């Protein structure tokens, strides 16, 4: 309780320094937040593209509908499969005409084969799984051909992996920068109270007693900086939505994690700054 009071008193004694600290933390977390927003939007876009991954099995002309129904039941029971749809020759023609617009007349009845469209569960759309499902479907004797866009599925996954690794690396870099900035901000407070700290040590205050108000200070500044950064990111997201492209915002869990992250960075920054100072004095 005394440490909380001490932390608040320290903030009241140097309000400008405290405000500067919170704003600096907010800006560093804002950069982190913006990057996070870009990352989740890229991820969302990739997921939307990924949802279109499907395996299409083209059926022979003389395939009996009973055989197709049995195969569909079998395939539907594959653990990777979300749902299976049958597309008759007529439906295929209709769909093609709709997609081709002004060239609709090019297609004549009976040109396109009937097919089974297999949609995979989320998390089961990687190149290996897709190929494995396609290979199993290919074993049905009435299946003439199986297509699933092998090349673009591989490219999509490569892109996703690159985005994940780059996201992780940049995220860690931004977090490190944020921790350094928070540490520097807390260090200003520590230096402003250097004399007080040296007296505290001389009269026998424990290091934990000295550290605690700074840790609370870091925690409070981290949370306040996190909240302010959240407001900045929200405004930036609104602007982008209004004038550029439709984007998604963080969900409640992400917001909570972000503020928790700010608090964690605040405490870590304080711990490093005060620890360094106490080792020196």
């Amino acid at each position, binding site marked *: 309780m005394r440490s909380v009071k001490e932390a608040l008193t320290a903030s009241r004694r140097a309000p400008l320094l405290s405000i500067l600290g919170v704003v600096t933390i907010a800006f560093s977390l804002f950069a982190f937040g913006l990057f996070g927003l870009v990352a989740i939007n890229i991820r969302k876009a990739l997921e939307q593209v990924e949802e279109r991954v499907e395996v299409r099995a083209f059926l022979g002309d003389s395939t009996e509908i009973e055989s197709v129904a049995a195969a569909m039941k079998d395939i539907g029971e594959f653990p990777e499969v979300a749902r299976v749809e049958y597309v008759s020759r007529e439906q295929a023609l209709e769909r093609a005409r709709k997609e081709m617009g002004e060239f609709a007349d090019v297609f004549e009845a009976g040109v396109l084969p009937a097919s089974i469209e297999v949609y995979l569960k989320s998390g089961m759309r990687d190149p290996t799984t897709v190929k494995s499902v396609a290979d199993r479907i290919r074993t049905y004797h009435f299946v003439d051909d199986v297509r699933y866009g092998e090349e673009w599925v591989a490219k999509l996954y490569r892109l996703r992996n690159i985005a994940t690794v780059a996201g992780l690396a940049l995220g860690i870099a931004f977090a490190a920068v944020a921790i350094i900035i928070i540490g520097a901000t807390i260090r200003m407070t520590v230096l402003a109270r250097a*004399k007080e700290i040296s*007296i*505290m*040590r001389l009269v026998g205050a424990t290091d934990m007693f*000295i550290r605690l108000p700074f840790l609370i200070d870091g925690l409070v500044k981290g949370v306040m900086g996190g909240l302010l950064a959240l407001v900045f990111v929200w405004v930036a997201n609104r602007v982008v939505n209004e004038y550029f492209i439709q984007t998604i915002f963080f969900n409640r869990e992400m917001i909570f994690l972000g503020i928790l992250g700010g608090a964690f960075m605040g405490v870590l920054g304080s711990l490093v700054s005060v620890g360094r100072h106490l080792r020196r004095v």
Partner: protein
Amino acid sequence: MIRLTNVAKEYPRSGTALAEISFQVRKGEFVFLTGPSGSGKTTILKLLYMDDKPNLGEVWVNGVSSLTARGGEISRLRRRLGIVFQDFRLLEDRTAEANVRFALEVTGAPKASIAAKVSRALTQVGLASKATSYPREMSGGEQQRVAIARSLINDPFVLIADEPTGNLDERATRGVFQLLRDINASGTAVIMATHDLDLVRRSNYRTIELNHGRLVFDSAESPLAPRPSDPTMAEVEAAADTREKS
């Protein structure tokens, strides 16, 4: 109570600060530490309040050894020491009373006892009437008295004073020194590092003299021997000649 055994201290940049220092300070003793700048006085004091550790040898203070002392133990030891510096080390934005109270607050003293203890300490140093004054409103001597009051607040068994009169004029020096004598008379040991040889010569307290990190004189060991810092006969005669000529 305090014992240094073959203590040596070296700093990476400045080299040897202390070499083979051994002495003891008994309960209630008053000891001057003298010697020129850089002779190792402050280093010895730092070793006593365990702000630093010797490279060789051992320092014992009230049963705590420099070889084994760690964070919590050092903090507890410092609560039983009084430490005073030349530059007072007061918090400028707090009153005399708040500066003294600070030492109790940060060591978790029971709230109920704080006011009485602070009042008693300020009275002991003769500053009860200045309790609400800020350091900038006080003279150097008064500020040093506040620092002494703060150091007395936990009833220390020893008061460690590093050049406590170094920033004071002669009158204030006499006042602060008398205060330290009174504190010593009440049973608290005092170890005082000083450059002020007049102060040393005017009293009969034990004197330990250092030079280049070595103990060159201890009046407890050879009470009749002249101190290395005492003027030689030639210097005394030369000083007398100068006085006569002027």
